[in-house]
Structure formats: C-alpha cells, structure tokens
C-alpha cells in the first residue's frame, strides 16, 4: 500500500525518507515540488498527485509535508489518515512535530515508522502499543540508560497488540490515580454584515487524560445526552452501551487521548457569545481606507469572555494600518497582510474598540471586497451547548481515583463577514 514516505520541510528539503518496499528515488518528489510551486499557499497543494508511475499523497502539518508514495489503488483517506497518525505519534513522543525535533530523534522516528507499517500496511498505530516497544525519550531515561546500559527498545511483545483492547498497555501502575476530562466546545459560525447569523453550529470534543492503575472500566453519563447529535468515538468506547443507554463505557488507553467528538444537534439554537460592530471601507479617492471595530458581549451565560482576538486577512493593496485600540494591542504583518488585534478579557462596561485608517498602495485599485473578521475567544467553565457530565464511575479496580471534568468553550471557525 504505502510504498515510501518523505518528510519535506517548508523550504522544500527532504530531511527524512523511509521505504517499506524497494527504494524509490527521491526524484519522484519533483512532481510534488512542481505542484508546490504552482500552489501559492502550502494548503493549496493538492493532497493527491498523479505521476507517470506513482501516486503521491501528502499532508501538510506543522509546516512540514508528509509525502507518501503509492503505486497501486488505495483509498486516499486511508493514507491521509495514516500520515496524520504518524504526525500525531511524533507529536506525542517529542512534544511537537518539527523538523529540528525529528532530526534530533531521527533514529527513534525511523524505528517508529518501521513499527507502524509493515510492507506498507499499518501494523501498530496505537500510541500505547508503540510506547511499549519504543519508549519515548525523556531526560531521566537517557540518564538511566547511560548508567545502566539498558535501552529504549522494549524487549517483550506489547500485550496490547494481541488483545482486543490494543489501545491499553498492561501493567499500568500509578501512585496517584487520576482521570481528568476536558469538555471543549467550539462554535463554528458565519455572521453576515448585518449581524445575522448565517450559519452556526457547535462541535465538541472530550479530551481525556487518564492515569489509572490496572484495568479500570469507566463509564460516563450525561445530564442531557439528547443534545448530542452526531458522535464519533475512540475505539475504546462500546457502541452498544451508547446506543442503549447513552452512556460512554470504556476501558481507557493510558495517558492522553480524545474520547469522543460530537456535534450538537442543529435543532438547538446556538448562542453566539459576542457581537461585532464593524465598519471597514476603502475610499474611491485617495489611497486610504477606514476601519472601526467594536466588540461587545451578547450571550455569555454569565461568564467572562477571555482571550478575545480578531484576525483580519487584509487585501493585498493595504500597505499599513494606523490604528488605535482602546484595549489590547494590534499588529499588522506587512508580509502576510494579516492584522491581529489581541484584546484579552472582554470588559462589558467598556467595550473594546479599534479604529483608525488604512493606507493603500497608491495606484492600486480600491479593493473590491472587505475582508472578513475571524474571531477567537475562550469562555472557561462552561460548555456553550449546556452539555453536562452527570457521573463518572469506575469499575474493575478497588482504589478511588481522583476524577475531574473541566468545561471550556472556544470559537472555532467564527467568521464575521463585512
């Protein structure tokens, strides 16, 4: 299936290659580079390219391209999903997925890739299984290794790979047993010029951080499960229990993982926490324009809106911005033409405002269109859909774990058209 993998940095250098079958020459990447040149933004490089003898399937993550070469028919999503899993694993192992970190740990990465695919077919992709075979490097371990001469490679078969719960490693032991869950909801919305909501929906995710001894069997129930419309689960969640009782029942993997993703049913009205009053205009005469933005709270469920930020992709013609912000600060990046206004906490008494003039390239035609505003915000301790976890129970182990649920609302793709 997957024949080879090339890791390519932003500048277009191949800095790692791995072949699972016969070696394929690097020159196959030329087709990719050609396409990359053509597409101005890296996001616009087509994920699937056809060359005379190969197909190139690539993803762009963290400023790196993961380019895989396949020779025969294969579901493209299969490869794409796998490549993302590789990136996730690297991130999981080293904290982030960057060229320098991969270069520092090139042997570990190579070993990981060796274990993840066999002859191009995924073999072990569960982080718990991989970590039993190849331990992630830590400072402590490298010290111990040099002292005792032990290695980073596990010498026994990870039991997880054999069981029907491959996501959990066996023999987990902790002195503090903790299970924390973050319910994070994101508001995706498009608000039009007049302030009416064109489209809004809530997507949620439950991120778990579980450090429990043994083989705990957890079950989580919600106060209002009917809110959840469409769900997708980590493989550990039992479908059946969800279908019958709307309860999440699972034996968790060890460590951090995404328990479920959900979509809040569209019948429910989505509360939009802030409103935006904006006026951006470019004058026909003279190379300048005006910008005036005010943000105020709308429905915040009694909580403070934090980490408020407005991002505007300005038209190419905008040369500079001369603005004053009543709160927070703004910066305008000349190269990317992005204006970012970082507001911070929203004070309902004194609404933040940003106003001033924009200067345009002289001679350039007046921009046709006003740029839309992308809003970022956070509201702590509340899930905007109103979803609440009612109980979290543990079976199968005797000890009492620390349990905790945290709620957070964020803006996802929150866009205000102007």
């Amino acid at each position, binding site marked *: 299936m997957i024949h080879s993998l090339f890791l390519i940095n932003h500048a*277009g250098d191949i800095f790692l290659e791995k072949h699972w079958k016969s070696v394929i020459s690097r*020159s196959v*990447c030329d087709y990719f580079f050609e396409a990359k040149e053509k597409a101005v933004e890296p996001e616009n490089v087509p994920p699937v390219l056809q060359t005379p003898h190969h197909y190139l399937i690539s993803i762009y993550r963290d400023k790196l391209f993961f380019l895989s070469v396949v020779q025969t028919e294969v579901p493209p999503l299969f490869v794409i999903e796998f490549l993302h899993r590789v990136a996730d694993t690297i991130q999981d192992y080293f904290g982030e997925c960057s060229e320098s970190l991969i270069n520092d740990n090139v042997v570990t990465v190579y070993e990981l890739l060796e274990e993840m695919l066999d002859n191009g*077919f*995924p073999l072990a992709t569960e982080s718990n299984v991989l970590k039993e075979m190849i331990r992630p490097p830590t400072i402590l371990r490298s010290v111990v290794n040099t002292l005792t001469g032990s290695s980073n490679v596990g010498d026994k078969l990870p039991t997880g790979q*054999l069981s029907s719960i491959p996501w959990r490693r*066996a023999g987990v032991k902790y002195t503090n047993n903790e299970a924390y869950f973050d319910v994070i909801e994101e508001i995706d919305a498009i608000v039009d010029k007049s302030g009416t909501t064109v489209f809004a929906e809530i997507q949620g995710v439950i991120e778990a951080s579980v450090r429990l001894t043994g083989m705990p069997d957890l079950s989580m129930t919600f106060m209002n499960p009917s809110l959840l419309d469409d769900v997708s689960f980590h493989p550990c969640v039992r479908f059946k229990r969800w279908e019958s009782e709307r309860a999440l029942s699972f034996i968790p993997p060890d460590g951090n993982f995404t328990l479920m993703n959900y979509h809040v049913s569209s019948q429910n009205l989505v509360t939009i926490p802030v409103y935006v009053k904006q006026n951006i205009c470019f004058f026909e005469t003279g190379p300048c324009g005006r910008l005036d933005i005010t943000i105020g709270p709308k429905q915040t469920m009694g909580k403070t809106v934090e980490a408020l930020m407005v991002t505007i992709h300005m038209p190419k013609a905008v040369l500079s911005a001369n603005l004053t912000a009543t709160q927070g600060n703004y910066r305008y990046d000349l190269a990317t033409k992005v204006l970012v206004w970082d507001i911070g906490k929203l004070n309902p008494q004194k609404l933040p405002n940003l106003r001033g003039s924009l200067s345009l390239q002289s001679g350039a035609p007046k921009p046709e269109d006003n740029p839309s505003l992308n809003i970022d915000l956070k509201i702590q301790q509340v899930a905007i859909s109103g979803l609440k976890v009612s109980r979290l129970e543990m079976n*199968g182990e005797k000890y009492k774990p620390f349990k905790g649920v945290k709620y957070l609302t964020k803006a996802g793709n929150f866009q205000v058209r102007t």
Partner: protein
Amino acid sequence: MTAMQRLLLQLPVSAVNMVKTVQSQVQGQEEDKSPVLTPDGVHQAWYSALQPDELRHLRSGGSGGGGGGRGGGGGGGGGGDHEEHSSLEEGGGGGSIFQSQPLRHDDLKEMLDSNKDSLKLEAMKRIVAMIARGKNASDLFPAVVKNVACKNIEVKKLVYVYLVRYAEEQQDLALLSISTFQRGLKDPNQLIRASALRVLSSIRVTIIVPIMMLAIKEAASDMSPYVRKTAAHAIPKLYSLDPEQKDQLIEVIEKLLADKTTLVAGSVVMAFEEVCPERIELIHKNYRKLCNLLIDVEEWGQVVIINMLTRYARTQFLNPNMNESFLEEGSDKTFYGSDEDSDEEEEDKDKKAEAPMVKRKPYVMDPDHRLLLRNTKPLLQSRNAAVVMAVAQLYFHLAPKAEIGVIAKALVRLLRSHSEVQYVVLQNVATMSIKRRGMFEPYLKSFYIRSTDPTQIKILKLEVLTNLANETNISTILREFQTYIKSMDKDFVAATIQAIGRCATNIGEVRDTCLNGLVQLLSNRDELVVAESVVVIKKLLQMQPEKHSDIIKHMAKLTDNIQVPMARASILWLIGEYCEHVPKIAPDVLRKMAKSFTNEEDIVKLQIINLAAKLYLTNSKQTKLLTQYVLNLAKYDQNYDIRDRARFIRQLIVPTEKSGALSKYAKKLFLAIKPAPVLESPFKDRDHFQLGSLSHLLNAKAGGYQELPDWPEAAPDPCVRNVEVFTLLERVTTLTSVPEWTKCSSREKRKEKKVDKPFYSDSDGESGPTESADSESDSASGSESGSGLEESGSGSESEEMSESEQSSEEEVRKHERKNKLRKSVSESESDDEEESESESSQSESEDSESEAEVKKKKKAAETKPPPKPVKKECKKEKKEMSLLDLDDFEPTPSPQATPLNSFLSSSLVNDLEGLSLSDAVLSPAAISPCSALKSYELLHRITGEGLCVEYCFSRQPFPPDANMVSVQMQFTNNATSDTKNLHMEDVKLQSGMRVNEFTEIELLPAGEAASAVMGIDFCDSTQAANFQLCTHRRKFFVSIQPPVGELMRPVFLTENEFKKEQGQLMGMNEISEKLTLDVKCRNEHAIVQRVITAANLSRVPCGSDKECRFGGRTVTSGSLVLATVSSREDGAAQLTVNCEKMVIGTMLVKDILLALTQ
C-alpha cells in the same frame, strides 16, 4: 542444524558453498554457531568478488523502482541534498564507492567490530540516521550483517532495519543472515518468531523464495495469532518478489481466511486483495464471519475488509433499488419476511431468482446482505476518517435508497477534520450529491464557504452547493454566492460564476435572476470576473437569445474594454450568432475588430472570421468589404489554422464561378440553430468508480483498481455462504473429551433439528467450523461443552461483538422485542433443563425440570400476556428466534472472560492458549490440539437459590501473579431477582497457598450471566481452596480443588532438551506404568488429545510416531514435568512421567492413565 541444512540444499550451489565456508570458519573460531563473519580480510575479498552481480542487480532495480522519477533537478529541493542524492544514484550499491573511498566509515566499522554493545549501538544509530536522511551506507553491509545475532535487542532491531534496506542490493551477503532468522522462526517466544518472519520476508532476495514460502506456510498454522498475522503480511511481500508463487500463496490465504481472530482478519484480507482479488469465491465461507468480526478488527483492517465486502456484495446480491417503488416498505418488510419459516424461505429464494424477470414481484433482501449493512453501520461512528468513508461508500453502493441517508451526517462530520480529509470527502460528496441529492440537503449550510478555506476546498464546496441547488433552496444559495463573488480569491470567484451559470441552466425559475446578476458583474472592476461572466452569459443566452438582445448589446460594448481573449471570443461569437437581434451594432463591432485584428489572440481571430462570415451572409450590403478585408488579413496570418479557416470561409461564402455546390448551403452551415451547451458537473457519472478509491478521486483507473461489478441479474445461490453444520458436529464430538460425550450427542440431535431452518443453521455453522478448523479453537468447543448453550455459537467470540450487533439492529426489532424476550427466556430455560438432565443425577434433574417448568410459566405470565395463539403467530415466533439468536440471547455464559469483568480479550486468551500448545509450530502436520476445557460445578443452582456457578481452569497465565493458576468462574443468575455484590470472603487455605480474589460483581440481573477470573496459588498441591461466595443476601461455602493436571503450565522443549532433562530425572523421580490403550485411542492424534486434556502440558517433538512426549512445569515451583507415552501396535503402551515432585508425578500418572484407558 538439520533443518537449516535441508534448507540450504535449496540454495544455489555458490551460495551454499559460501554459507558453508562461513560456518566452518565460524565453527572453528567460536563456539556460538551464529553465521558471523570474521572481522577482517575475508569478507573484503568476497565483497569485491560480488561486484559484477551487484551492479547487474542494481541496473534492473533502478528501472523498476525509480522508473517514475525524471532524475532532473529537484524543484525547490536544496542543492546540497540533490547532489548527494545523485551521487547515490550513480554510486549505486556501493561497490564503486567502496573502491574509490576505501577508508570511508572506518570508524563505524571499528565500532561495530568492538565487543561493547554500547559502541555497536552508537554505530548502528549513526548508520540508521544516515539511511533516514537518504545517505548511502551500503558499504557497511559486511560489518553490519555480522551483528545480526547480537544479543542486545536494540542493536538487533537496528541491524534488521539496515538489512531490510540494503539486502536487495547485496543479495549474496544478505544470505548470511538467513539462518539467524530461520532459527528465530522456531523460537518459543512468539515475538521473536514473528519478527524473524517479518524480517525474513522483507528481505527482497529471490534466492530465498522457497525458504520464505516454507516459513509462511509454517507461520500460517502457528499457535499465536500474532505470528499468523505476520504470515498474512508476508504473503504480499513474497508475491511481489515472485509472482509465480501465486497458487501456493492462495492456498495459504485460503487457510488464513478461515482464521477467526480479529488480529488476522484485516491482514489476510489485505493479502487477498493484493494477491488474488479476483478469487471472490474464497470469501463465501468466510463472509458471515468477517461481517461479525468486523467491529472488533483494528481500524485499518476494517477499511480493507469493508472495501472488499462491497465488491463481494455486488457480485452476490441483487440490487436493492431495482424496484424503486417497492423500496420503502420493501426494505423493512423483507428483512422479516426473509426469516419466515424454513419452507417460506425456500419460496423466497425462488422469488429472488425470478425477481429480475418478473419485475413486479417484491424485492427481497438476502439476509446476508442485510447482515453486512447492519454490521457496518456502527462504524460510521469511528474516529478514523478512512473507516467512515469506507462505510459510506458501502452504503452508497449497496444500501436501499431509503437507508443511504445515515451516511450523510457522518460525512459532514468529517468536514471538520484536516483539510486533506476534507478534500477527499468533498470529492466523494460531490459525486454522491449528484445521484442522491436529498441526502445532503439538510446539511446545506455545512458546505458554506469560509474565507479561510484553501481554494481547492472552496471550489469543491461550491461544486456540492451547486449540486444541491433546487427550486426551494436556490434563493439562499444565490445569496450565499453573492458574498463569494466579492472574495479576494479570484480563482474562487471564477468558479462561483460558473456555479451560478450551472444553477441558472438547471433551475429555469432563476435563470433571469442569475442572468441579471451576471450582467451586473460585467461592470466589475476585475477583468477576470467580467471575462468569466461573459463566458457564462454566452452559454445562458444560447438558451433563449431572443429575449435578451439588450444584454447582447451591452456585451457588445464590452469589447472596447475587455482584454481576456476567451471573453472577447465569446462576445464575438454571441454577436455573430445573434446578429439579427442586434442588426445595427454587429457591423460596427466587426469594423472595430477588423481594425485590431492583427493584435488579437488566435481564438479571437477565429471568432472575428466567424463573425465576418455570418454578417456577410445576413447583411452583405454593409459588411462585404469589411469581410473581405478581414479575410485578406487572415490569409497572411502566421497561424496556419487561421489561414486555413480564412481560405475555407472565402470559398464557402463568396460566390465565384468556381465555387462548388457547397456555397449554396453556406447559410445553413453557419446559421444553423446550435443546441445550448449543457453545463454539467465534472463529477457526473464518477460513481462507476468505487467511491473513496484513488481511482475515483483521479477519475482514472489506478493500477490494481478492481472494478466494482454491476449487480447480477439473478442472485447467485446464497447457499455458498452456508457452512456445513454436520462436519462441525462431527468435529466437535471427536474433539470434545470423553465425559462430555453424552451431552454432545444430545446437542447434536438438537442441532440437527434446527438444520432445516436455514438461517439459523447458517449463523450457527458459520462460526463453528472455522473455529474448530482453527488450531486453537477453544472458544467454540469450550463454550459448547461448558455451557451447553447452542446460542453461544458465535456469541462466544466476545460479548462485545454480539452486543454491538444487537445495538445496530435495535431499531429494526424494537417492536418485536417483547415477544423475543419471552422467547429467549424460555429458550434458556429449556437449555437448562437439558443440561441438568445430562449432568446431574436423575432425581435432581427431575427437580430442576419441574422447577424450570414452573418458572417458565411464571415468567411468561410476567413478561407479557401471551398473544392469542394464532397458529401463524406461533410459527413466526419460532423462526424469529432463530434469526435473532446471535444478538438476542441473554448474555451467553461463555467460559471466556467477558470484556467487562476480566480484561483478557478472547483473542489474547486464544493466543495464550495457543502458546501453551506450541507444538504445532514444530510439526505443522500435527493435529490441532483441542483444549476443550472441562468445567466443574461450584454451586448448583438449587443450593445457590438460583445462582449457578461453574468454574474451569482456563489454562491461561494469570497476569497479576505468574505463580497462580487462573480459574475462570461463570456465574449464571437463574433466579427471578437480581443478585448484587457478588464477591468472595473468608478464604481458608492450607499454609503457603494464596488466592487472588475476583473483582466483585456489583450486579447480576435475573437471567443474566457473568464471568470472572480468580487466581489461586495451590503450592503445587491438590489441596482445595475453600472460601465463601457471598451475595447481598447469602453466603455459600464452596471449594475449588484442582486436578493435578491443572497445576502445571506447558513449556517448550526441543527433543534434545527433553532427553537431557529426562536423563536427570531418573530413579525415584521416574514413574512408569504399563497400560492398554482404549480402542478409540490408538492413534497419535487421540493420545495427544487425551493427554493434553488431562494435563496442561505441551507436546515435545519426537522423531517416532510411536512415542508422544509432553513437557511442562509446575506453576508454583517451576519443577519440570515430563511425560512420555510409547505405544505398540496392539494397544499396549507404557506411560512414563518424570518429575522431581513425586506426589505430583504419581497423581499425574494416575490421571493420564485414566484418560488413556477409558
């Protein structure tokens, strides 16, 4: 050594000689018989000797592998990198490099030759880092390969990595490592066996094909499913190395397809797809099993299996949508309809066969077709986008129209994922939305475009929005489009204008609105926008030109400003075509164009000529001169197309004496009414490719793509998927140990009764034969003998599986539920009866029977007043129960741990069991040992007031404590009320013994069953462990006493080790007994079977078939237990047990004796 020598015979002479030399050298120098090269001198000589061969190989490899590359400069690639790379290409395998730079990597070689593992490791790390960066490290091959037998596991792993990378280039040297792997293949540790096979099969050296073949065959019947999985992975590797092995490989695939573990399923189907996707008939017998296993297979395997099953279903079932009108009721009804009584089922089949011919007959869905749809549906909830997509395409291609809707939600969810995922999903949604628009309509807004989307995503979303547009939503969509037109992304704007054009052509009501909107765009500042609008307007106007002369006039004015050639050409064509609508303007336009003719682009020039010709024909008075001027200009144009066109047109329109008959028809030729262009989606008809495939995405057949077959006209015989029940029964009976015999036969009868109900027998048989055919077939036979519940057939595989199945079917059968509840209750009751009949004493069974009778009545009364017993109703019930046996049965008391209570999965259990019986590794021909677990009663349900407890020794390691024997407890609550807080207390033990209690079962509802695992350290004695079993109401005194055979665990011994150990356990430690074998037990197979049933030992290979040897160690002290049975023709035999624990030895002799003579 013998095995290796045998294999070496298959190598070409030169290679053998080489290996032999090495061996002799090695043997001379080192005691360790590993094929290690001598560190200096010798290998260098070999090395240079290899060169010609190597280079030849490289050349061939280069054309195959790097064929796609164009060699040249890497676009944005760093110069340095590229140089390095090209040197690599030229340098090739390293022979030349070696010569030119003999000193290169000397430090690494030195480190590799050192005695310190840490130095070796450091060197290997540096080498692997070189490989990862694409640098050539092939000259280190000899130095690296001799570390292949290194003790340090990390060094070893890295050596493997190196070997796999360079073996292809250094074939002859790579052969030196083969024996290491061959030895690894026989290792008792499954990890080592698997990794040896993995590396061996990854070495792409054609010479070792026979060795690989043999290794794969052996591994395919390995005890460990992990090793079998590795074997499945190795199949495509070998196939790509030597396609001539196909036939043999198919045999292996066939065998592995029958494997029932989830671990193997995905990998073997992948092998099937790569090696023999056309052999769809191999799937028949495994179809139902694959459907049922699917949910527990790992996600990647799920994708492959689902894609394959889609193809399979297309060849085996009828199109559910062929009779669209029947569909709505059809899909639901048929499901139940097809499960009608057996005779009706027969009729159904007839109907099905006739269906395509007599269209009016209602379509009846094959239950297997339904099974597939039902079992894949929950996977729409997978986190893996590829799985979701696979299910979506399965539904799109296979489901009745009314049911396809479910996939829309899941696909829309994927739009939140990474942009690459969005890209692929949107492509597929675009194709789907043409065929089945309704399904995505509710999600229209999810396809709205954000300014931050990448352009390619925007354009795909636009495509979907356009496909979804209809009379009701068009106004919303157009409003949305209006905002898009203002976007800064001009490619996107152009695409939007096209989309508006398509909406206008498809939906008559909005044509004028769209046209007006587009005309407004003509005054847009951006030329690209205007140009695109012109092109689209041209297409629209062609539909009804007479109404829109003002628009044409407006466009004519644009020729002054607009410069985009395509737009100019469009305008000119439009004016020429409809010149009678704009009689005054047209000649003027031609005049202007004639002026600028020489500066125009070619397409514009062609249209000027066209315009001139048309005007000449309609209005020759005004335009004659202009036309001639234009034609003259064109005559001397640089482009020969234009010159040709000019010449052709002149001949045609200007009447001369020479002009032929054609000029009469010039008007007809030029002014014929042209059909309006149809604006259609580029995704139209793309669904003849299987959705989700690469070929679909590219809209071109990719290599290895398997066509999605059309539905068959008439359904092939569904019986091919039946798995014969009789063979199963025979097997079960032969494999089950003797004391169970009677029970079995009674079950056999019961089964036979059911055989005539086709559906039932299917589901029953389906898991059965595969299980018993499988070497470690414990769960099926185990549960059969243990609980005697026939429903456990497939249920015993794991509770979770049947659970999920149940869920997916939930809606379908909700209204039937009550009925069934009662059913299954009575069913289980009757089972109990039979069980107690066979197991307990006469009087007791009478008791229980009557009790059960009473209870049955009670329950029936409780659950629901029985529906008026109309005859037909009764019948229906009967078959219903047979249909739903899989999921509806109250959780089956299988001896396997259920995932809820103990966390050993069935596959792990299987595997561990497999380990304990690892003899098959050595002798693939050996009979598959059966571990029919004998279960013992701990608490009878009469004494337990409805709570029935059985236990068996599951022969698995007890993970919390290796010195404990694992005891599997099976609780069945036959009472009418729930039992709570089931736990144990007050354990009374002999000194030294220890117990690891099972986890408390908090609730055991009435009629439910549960299982738990406890561990007991019996201290190698057969003393009973006494304890109290407590419920929330009562306490019961119970005790567990192990048969001596359960106090040991199997160990792996070779023949030599066995002899050596036996020699040390002579005298008092040896106990012999003469015996006469039971008549039924005179072959090797039966002897092994009975001994292994009696004691948890593993077989030790032995040259003679007159002698069977077994080995084990006691669980607590680890003392060796060796048993030998040597038999003679007449049935006389001698049993010898060697064990340093005499008590155990004596008791074991007794037990085995009993097993062999009875």
